[in-house]
């Protein structure tokens, strides 16, 4: 199966490779690079997903502000609610404003107080949900100022919450990039060991090439060509596996969870849709891994030859 898959991947044309194509070291390196490419692509895809979800979340939350009116002795709540709605609607940049009904407000407390409680005897804070046309143009300061006329009223722009979300998303993105860098370092180290192993295994070939007048540059080029081919194949297999992984996770999230839970997961992770930027990122893993493999092996071979000749 793997052999058949590899046969359709790019191969060098022309004379046979001077460095044997099928060797234990080559197969091990191919497997290792496939795994590293898969991990890189999955990490990169995860970073893109988190960043996209955080941006979408932040934008959604930013388009809504909430006026909270606490019960104050001597104040009529319904009257204050109407005033607050009116003030909000007259504020530039506001698309709509609506006071939550008493039932809706009580429902918001159910997660903390449980269901079936009669809350009519308790005066609870009431909320006015304000939708903004454009968060940048909305006169939030003006609305805050005007709301001072209503006792017990305050405006929540969710700024703190959004900042926490952005910080968390930034931390995840940074961690992902650190993981990518570590995978890169691990890949380079593995290639160095694999190259030195391949050089030792093929010592006879190196000696013969030297005897027939091959320069170190020529020999390094031959090994680099072989490793570039392995890097391309491994990178491509890893990237394809990562795409399959995201497709499977997306399908699982969509089908295996109940519609409500699926919707919640969708809100959190954007339904695992990588988008064009995610796909470009994963596709970029292939040439980057191939180049990393080729350059690392060339430098290692040149050093090995310099040490031994």
């Amino acid at each position: 199966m793997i052999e058949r898959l590899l046969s359709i991947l790019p191969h060098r044309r022309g004379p046979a490779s001077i460095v044997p194509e099928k060797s234990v070291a080559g197969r091990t390196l191919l497997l290792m690079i496939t795994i590293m490419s898969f991990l890189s692509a999955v990490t990169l895809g995860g970073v893109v997903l988190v960043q996209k979800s955080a941006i979408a979340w932040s934008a959604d939350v930013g388009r809504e502000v909430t006026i909270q009116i606490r019960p104050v002795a001597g104040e009529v709540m319904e009257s204050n609610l109407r005033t607050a709605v009116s003030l909000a609607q007259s504020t530039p940049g506001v698309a709509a404003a609506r006071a939550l009904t008493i039932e809706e407000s009580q429902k918001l407390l159910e997660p903390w107080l449980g269901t079936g409680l009669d809350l009519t005897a308790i005066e609870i804070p009431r909320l006015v949900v304000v939708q903004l046309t454009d968060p940048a143009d909305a006169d939030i300061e003006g609305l805050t100022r005007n709301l001072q006329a209503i006792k017990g009223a305050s405006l929540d722009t969710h700024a703190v919450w959004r900042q926490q979300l952005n910080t968390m998303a930034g931390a995840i993105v940074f961690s992902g990039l650190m993981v990518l860098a570590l995978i890169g370092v691990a890949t380079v180290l593995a290639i160095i060991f694999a190259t030195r192993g391949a050089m030792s295994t093929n010592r006879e070939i190196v000696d013969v090439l030297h005897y027939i007048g091959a320069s170190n540059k020529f020999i390094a080029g031959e090994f680099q060509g072989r490793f570039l081919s392995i890097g391309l194949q491994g990178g491509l297999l890893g990237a394809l596996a990562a795409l399959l992984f995201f497709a499977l996770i997306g399908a699982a999230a969509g089908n295996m969870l109940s519609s409500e839970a699926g919707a919640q997961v969708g809100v959190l992770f954007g339904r695992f849709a990588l988008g064009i930027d995610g796909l470009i990122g994963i596709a970029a893993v292939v040439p980057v891994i191939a180049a990393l493999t080729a350059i690392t092996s060339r430098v290692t071979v040149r050093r090995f030859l310099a040490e031994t000749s």
Partner: protein
Amino acid sequence: MIEFSDVGLRYGNGPEILRDLTFSIEPGSFHFLTGPSGAGKTSLLRLLLLSLKPSRGRVTMFGEDVSDLTQDRLLQMRRHIGIVFQEFRLLDHLTTFENVALPLRVLGQPESEYRPNVTELLEWVGLGERMNALPSLLSGGEKQRAAIARAVIARPKVLLADEPTGNVDPELSSRLVHLFAELNRTLGMTIILATHELPLLDQFNYPRMLLSKGELVIHD
């Protein structure tokens, strides 16, 4: 073409393997290098192949002192020297054709350019029908003829052979030396053939260099 003057060779701090070698090799000549095992034949061939530097004395090849050659110049000079080993040293994963073409690939020639020459040479050494065979499918004699073809395909000025008949029967040994003689006669290649098979030496009237305990005792 090749001049050795009071040349000595030692590996590291060990004893001298070769001592006080003084001789010259004329262009187009054929020499047998002989002597018992351990006499230093392979070490002398390695000096001639420029894969070792003498510990003392002076080696001149193609008119240049080899002791202070740059890496690039050394490489260029090595391309004028062909080598045939006792154990053939063909690359097992390459066909006979690809093995023989290797020195031309190293020189950067495209296959379209070298294919006719390699094919012609393989036919000349009697391997025209075996050019697509891997070394594992060749007999000892065929492997050695392939190794000789590889050594001469780039038309070196000097051809060195280290016990090239060591792994073949006496009849084939004689035919292989005839092949070397033919190369010497037709292409004017300078040939130094190391062997310890005295009956073989008696069949051919070529000058002998006899090494004993690292010293050249006969050079006629």
